[in-house]
């Protein structure tokens, strides 16, 4: 087996890991490893307001937020609409797409210090 075939075998099948119906936000955190916020099923207005505030706050602080597109490929979140509760992601081809927060799995990475 060539090295290329070996690497391709190792690649995860596109979309297999991100196809889901539940909204989830994973945040890299210094102390906890990962913070997970479940978004689907949250109906309490106060809880939703807190989620909105946290997502807006992270974007303002320069965090990189990533979400999967329809094909399961990770894309950077460009905008967040707190009223509609949707992320806007840019695609390689065609116009930007909207992903509902309640159905998207997003990951937040804090600003980088280089290394």
């Amino acid at each position: 087996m060539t090295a290329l075939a070996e690497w391709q075998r190792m690649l995860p099948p596109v979309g297999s890991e991100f196809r889901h119906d539940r909204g989830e936000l994973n945040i890299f955190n210094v102390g906890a490893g990962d913070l997970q916020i479940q978004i689907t099923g949250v109906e309490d207005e106060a809880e939703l307001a807190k989620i909105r505030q946290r997502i807006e706050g992270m974007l303002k602080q320069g965090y990189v937020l990533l979400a999967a597109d329809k094909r399961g490929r990770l894309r950077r979140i460009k905008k967040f609409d707190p009223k509609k509760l949707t992320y806007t992601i840019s695609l390689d081809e065609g116009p930007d797409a909207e992903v509902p927060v309640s159905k998207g799995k997003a990951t937040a990475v804090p600003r980088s210090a280089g290394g």
Partner: protein
Amino acid sequence: MAAPIVPESTEAFRDALVQSAADTLPEILAESLDADVTQDEKPTDEEAEDVDRILAEVARRNGIPLYDSAEEAAKPWSQRRVSGQMHELLRALFQTAAIERGFMGGIPIPGDGSPPLVIEPRHPLRAALESIGANLEDSATRFGRAIRAGDFAFAASRLPKDRDYEHVTSWWSDRLQRLVLVVRDRETQLRRHVLWPYRFNLDHEERWLKLADTLSASLNYDYDAEVTAMESLEKHVTAHQFKMYLITGMFMESSPRSGIAYLFRRLRPTIALGSSGPRKSLITAEQDGERKVRIIACLCLHPIGYYQGSWAGVMVPTDDVLTHLLLMRGDEHMFWRQANQHSPRNINAGL
């Protein structure tokens, strides 16, 4: 006044800490976190003593010692080291406070003996966090750390004091196997090249120090956080990749966009591999029957911060690996833009 916390078990202790955090959180910390601008000033002695008084009150309420001995408490403020229990308590308090105020990435608190921190420029507590432990080192050690961390601006500031130089640019010369600094004389505006008298690839002591610093930084990692991060990584990679990671601490993945293959490593920069031919991706080269592989760069990137002079970030090692992987998949250009791109011959590349 809040009731003292009685640590019946580790879990109960943590729960109690979280519940009581709002009561015992120092106001100074709260104000710092609420500030919109980066604070570049270090605390004055008076402010430091204020913090010390608050810490003493926090320790008293929780029934733990602030310092391990009377000798430690008698040292100047900047040299005192809090007890292990107090350190654990502070970490939990800072963590809770950070999340409550929307700093979801948390706040790193270096432990006793850890190298000083380098924090991302916009972090509200940057100056305070970077000052922890920095004043315990002599200038020669700090200088060595700056060089190893690639902090050339700091290194330039340590040039002979008879002239006032400012840093212009710097780079690593493969041919000379040295750092080349360009500095400008502030008075005459004349530029000057400086060849740094280090030959990294021959200096085994430099490599050993970097390893030792990485080891001492690892004392700050939380076991549960690393396990959580590894569980998260497992969801993002194939079983084969995860097995490789568990056994060797590294795994490989190619970018379908650029054709570059990446070797992600625990506690080391990610290695970006391309073909030896010009303008040819690794995949194309492989299809053409060419097997030559070259290292394009070693990409070093840590969210929030890292321990100076080491390969350790403030996040647990697997979170750093996961960050590299997700940024590569989600925004490869940004990954390259934000990462420090080390030459494979540079000590910082970890090869």
